[in-house]
């Protein structure tokens, strides 16, 4: 028998075009997504007068700068924002690259659209000039974010130089209790290991709790790998994966699909495969989790209180906590459930898939939000689906805005911003200072927890709201 191999190594090896004397690998890239922000890379290509090597493997998606109030480019007030969207159209057209543009019925956030269209497949190496590219690893592919110079390199050569990262396995044993989601798993391990805890590692998520996650929930979990510093996050494909992929628009059909599935089924870590680091969590330890600070590592179960820097023995941690509390406008030792919010946002590549919207709607049905807020579906197809299910009515009746799809208020590039000093309960991925707008204060949590915060006007344990509600209408992320 050959040496037991990790899932990561199997995929890596299949893509190694060349290995340099220094040990760097030149990797073949199966899928390359570009967006409005990729203009720097196209400019680099133009400076060198180079063509796109493989336009057939390159896909353009308008998401970062798209308006969420209209699908009409003329409705974009800021000429610089409009120009970003136009540049993407021009660059993709010039190089013969397929574009999912503003008015495309399939448009969406790249990390929602890729899986939805079946462009994302197990065993691939996928890149995009966006750090949340790790999302696609949910299918058992190696997917990671790259900078503009690397985007230019991939455009020019369809390859990328990479040093092989170490591999860590995060195992979640047991079954998640009701109300506990993939978001909570992610925030829990990041809080435990730190925002740079997985730096230098590719992560494989494994264990009973992970196997039980739906495809959507797996996408959320892998999406947040970068927030713990990981190069990428991946989950071995299984029947859940194959069932999700079958009949997706860009997925092979018939015999080709069978052939692909046979290969995909070989993509798992062999028993006895060696990992550079093993981390084990038990599902019982995971509670609905929210962030209180300005780094995703500053996260706690909802029934706890924010730290008191005076009580922290490590001076570096005390200093960081003091600064975070000051920015967030919180008092040392304040209970999380005593934190009032000003706004909610449900959206982003992390948590705006149909299951996420269902989970939020299940909490909001028949309720009023005490604060303003908006819902931006992860893709236009998710929006259409949600409308077919009547979820849009639930959000609108609760007093929230039902918007078009885009990156929206997660990063504010299109002008959807949280005002300075405002506190937002958000389903997004980063609580960095100023992420949702200058001076904005972000608390990250799952969609159901954001909905619970909307209903009560403060951070709330969703389990205290939904107790007694028919459990069949509650989406928990677990099947």
């Amino acid at each position, binding site marked *: 028998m050959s040496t037991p191999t990790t899932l990561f190594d199997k995929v890596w090896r299949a893509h190694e075009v060349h290995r340099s004397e220094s*040990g760097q690998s030149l990797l073949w890239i199966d899928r390359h997504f570009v967006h409005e922000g990729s203009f720097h890379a196209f400019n680099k290509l133009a400076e060198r007068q180079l063509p796109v090597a493989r336009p057939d493997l390159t896909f353009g998606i308008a998401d970062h700068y798209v308006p969420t109030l209209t699908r009409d480019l003329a409705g974009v007030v800021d000429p610089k924002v409009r120009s970003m969207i136009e540049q993407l159209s021009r660059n993709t057209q010039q190089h013969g690259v397929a574009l999912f543009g503003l008015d495309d019925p399939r448009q969406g956030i790249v990390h929602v659209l890729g899986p939805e269209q079946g462009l994302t497949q197990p065993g691939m190496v996928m890149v995009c000039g966006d750090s949340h590219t790790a999302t696609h690893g949910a299918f058992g592919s190696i997917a990671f*974010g790259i900078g503009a110079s690397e985007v230019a390199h991939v455009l020019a050569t369809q390859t990328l130089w990479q040093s092989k990262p170490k591999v860590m396995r995060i195992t979640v044993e047991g079954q998640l209790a009701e109300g506990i989601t993939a978001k909570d798993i992610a925030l829990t391990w990041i809080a435990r290991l730190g925002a740079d805890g997985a730096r230098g590692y590719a992560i494989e998520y494994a264990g009973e709790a992970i196997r039980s996650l739906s495809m959507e929930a797996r996408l959320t979990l892998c999406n947040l790998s970068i927030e713990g510093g990981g190069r990428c996050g991946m989950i071995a494909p299984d029947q859940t994966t194959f069932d999700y992929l079958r009949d997706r628009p860009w997925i092979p059909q018939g015999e080709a699909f069978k052939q692909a599935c046979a290969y995909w089924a070989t993509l798992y870590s062999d028993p006895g495969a060696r990992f550079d680091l093993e981390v084990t969590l038990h599902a019982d330890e995971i509670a609905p989790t929210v962030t209180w600070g300005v780094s995703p590592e500053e996260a706690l179960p909802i029934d706890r209180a924010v730290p008191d820097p005076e009580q922290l023995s490590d001076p570096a941690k005390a200093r960081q906590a003091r600064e975070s509390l000051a920015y967030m406008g919180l008092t040392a030792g304040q209970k999380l459930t005593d934190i009032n919010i000003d706004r909610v946002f449900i959206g982003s590549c992390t948590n705006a898939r149909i299951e996420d919207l269902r989970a939020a709607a299940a909490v909001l049905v028949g309720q009023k939000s005490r604060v303003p807020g908006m819902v931006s579906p992860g893709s236009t197809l*998710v929006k259409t689906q949600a409308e077919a299910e009547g979820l849009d009515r639930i959000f609108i009746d609760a007093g929230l805005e039902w918007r078009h799809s885009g990156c929206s208020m997660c990063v504010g590039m299109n002008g959807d911003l949280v005002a300075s000093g405002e506190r937002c309960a958000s389903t997004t991925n980063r609580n960095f200072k100023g992420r949702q707008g200058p001076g904005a204060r972000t608390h990250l949590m799952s969609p159901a927890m954001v909905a619970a915060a909307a209903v009560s006007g403060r951070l709330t344990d969703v389990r205290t709201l939904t107790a007694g509600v028919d459990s069949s209408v509650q989406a928990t992320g677990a099947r």
Partner: protein
Amino acid sequence: MQPITVLDTLGVALAAANVDTDQLIPARFMKEPRSVGYGQFLLYDVRHNEQGTPDAEFILHRPNAADAEVMVSRRNFGAGSSREAAVYALVDYGFRCVVAPSFGDIFASNAVNNGLLPAVVEEDDAERLLAALGDTPAAIYVDLEKQLIRVAEVEVSFSISTVWRTKLLNGWDDIDMTRQHANTITDFAANYARQFPWTAPRLPETEIISKG
């Protein structure tokens, strides 16, 4: 790309952990073409108040700060987004090296691709360098060949991968390097297409139907 061997210059201390990419350059400035110079956007919201008035106390607004080429900071520098604009802001400001106990993965790659040295030091050594620099720009010496940094009496070593060190010492560019392997890539692509035929995108023939 301009090679780096030795930097005998001024350094500034940015004594904070998790200086993330969104702080290094707020998203709203990323619509600008590079030609406007991204240095003006560096740490914009950290060094200006809400009205856009510069904070005179901030290290980058101290006398001589414009001549600084090395920044020393705390752990997890450049965490977050893949925006290469975070590196453009540092480089356009005049920085050639950032020293920290750890860096965001993508930020570090972006830095090297733009000739900015991400020098990794031990946490204690970062504290010693920060203390030695103090709150005004001060003399600092960085030697990439010997992998050492000196501020006054404090001398520490730093780590960097051999590949990145070589690239920075020579000012090499990846695209030129890779194009030398053009034939290998072509052969690989042909074999790969035979072995994994399903990876070739199959254009949808039918109308798109939402799968939810």
